[in-house]
């Protein structure tokens, strides 16, 4: 080897050593895209729209969702197979993973960030874990009035280390108070309606709404006045109209609150329901291109973006909130499964599963600005959720 080659090699080694000490960086623009077919997560950042790498070994990620630690460094990923995985977004690796149930559907992180709760189908109930260690803190079965275990859906955090969730089979809403983690207290609201399929808390923590599959309407609980009990709203909705087959349950997570209005997918109809949040009555319905799955407001509430169930899932529609008009029908790719806005909403990421890419649009121009390759992408999760209640 010549002297000059040796010098070059030494220089490369020194450079290499520096490269192992990366510049410190924040996590506020990071996120994870679910690649469920491979049990992988794609680590991404939304300042320059790039992929930073993949994290594998997460098991069955169909219907996977996640929440973030309050320092926005860690994601807690809830897998369909009951896996709960803590992922380090900075280092791009799994910190810890536990198989906590047979079959689960989602979870939430408490107000202090110390507790992570998982909603389980099998065995029906919630399990609460220490956010640092993933050690089990509490196991709370969901048992209906008939004594049978029930699948749990629509879990969200409430102020005061509490979690709220719905019992699909039992038709019930429960609030678990873990302010003393050793002695959890459960408050139950029974007979809220047939088959609640999902639920959500408004970001101010004031209202919990559960969508009902087994009958028309929604169940509403005023969390600032819970003794008033659960009330049914919009129960006239869809009466006398034939419901279309529902190939995919709509999601209420990421639902749209725009000003005094709440925008929700109408189960089994090609419509979005606009509800007046002051009276909880229907204001109008907006006809759209298929059965809505996600109805998501841009963070400023000026636009609402909608994707659809099979067979209309190659389209995404953009609705102007003040005029309630569909202003654009986009074709971002095949089988668009999720909609994720950047923290201030100048861009939106759309995962096109059957096209193997994530398409990124400018929300002012409604034009595609970038496309990221991803293997059969589904859910898109950015860290700014860390600071939003009910997410």
């Amino acid at each position, binding site marked *: 080897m010549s002297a000059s080659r040796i010098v070059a090699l030494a220089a490369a080694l020194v450079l290499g050593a520096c490269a192992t000490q990366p510049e410190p960086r924040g996590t506020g623009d990071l996120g994870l895209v679910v690649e*469920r*077919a491979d049990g992988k997560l794609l680590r991404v950042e939304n300042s320059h729209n790039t992929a930073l790498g993949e994290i594998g070994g997460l098991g*069955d990620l*169909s219907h996977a969702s996640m929440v973030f630690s309050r320092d926005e460094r860690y994601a807690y990923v809830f897998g*369909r197979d009951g896996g709960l995985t803590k992922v380090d977004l900075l280092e791009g690796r799994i910190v810890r993973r536990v198989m906590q149930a047979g*079959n689960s559907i989602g979870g939430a992180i408490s107000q202090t960030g110390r507790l992570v709760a998982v909603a389980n189908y099998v065995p029906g109930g919630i399990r609460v874990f220490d956010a640092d260690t993933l050690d089990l803190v509490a196991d709370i079965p969901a048992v209906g009035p008939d004594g049978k275990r029930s699948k749990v859906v629509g879990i969200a955090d409430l102020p005061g280390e509490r979690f709220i969730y719905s019992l*699909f089979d039992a038709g019930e809403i429960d609030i678990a108070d873990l302010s003393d983690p050793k002695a959890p207290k459960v408050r139950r609201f029974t007979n809220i309606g047939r088959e609640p399929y999902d639920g959500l808390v408004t970001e101010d923590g004031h209202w919990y709404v559960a969508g009902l599959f087994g009958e028309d309407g929604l169940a509403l609980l005023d969390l600032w006045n819970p003794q008033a009990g659960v009330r049914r709203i919009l129960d006239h909705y869809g009466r006398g109209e034939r419901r279309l087959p529902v*190939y*995919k*349950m709509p999601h209420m997570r990421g639902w749209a609150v725009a000003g005094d209005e709440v925008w929700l997918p109408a189960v089994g109809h090609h419509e979005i329901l606009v509800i007046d949040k002051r009276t909880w009555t229907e204001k109008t319905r907006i006809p759209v291109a298929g059965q809505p799955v996600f109805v998501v407001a841009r963070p400023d509430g000026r636009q609402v973006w909608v994707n659809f169930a099979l067979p209309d899932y190659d389209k995404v529609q953009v609705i102007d909130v003040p005029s309630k008009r569909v202003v654009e029908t986009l074709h971002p790719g095949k089988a668009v499964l999720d909609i994720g806005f950047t923290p201030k909403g100048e861009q939106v990421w759309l995962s096109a599963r059957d096209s193997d890419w994530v398409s990124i649009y400018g929300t002012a121009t409604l034009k595609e600005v970038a496309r990221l390759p991803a293997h059969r992408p589904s859910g898109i999760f950015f860290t700014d959720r860390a600071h939003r209640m009910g997410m």
Partner: protein
Amino acid sequence: MSPSRYGLLVGGLALFALVAPPGRAAEPSPARQARLAEIVAEDCGACHGMTRKGGLGPPLLTKNLAGYDDRTLATVILDGRPDTPMPPWRGLLSDDDALWIARYLKGETDVR
């Protein structure tokens, strides 16, 4: 559509009608089989789990379905189960598609 493409399409349909006489179960084409397997994993998977171990709907593993004959299973798929979230797939799936999925779920056939 140009007239020649139209001609091709009509020809294709005629050919299809010849190889798949109505009333007799016909094996879906290899491309269709691949698509059906994808539908089972992704779209049925939304409720039954991608690995068919269950979710909002019950598990659809081979052992769970052993008691059903193919026709009955195909009928469940096409008509759904009224008053449950199991939707009728008629409209998106043909009789042959449903029968193939029934056999696929029971482990009697695979994508060729």
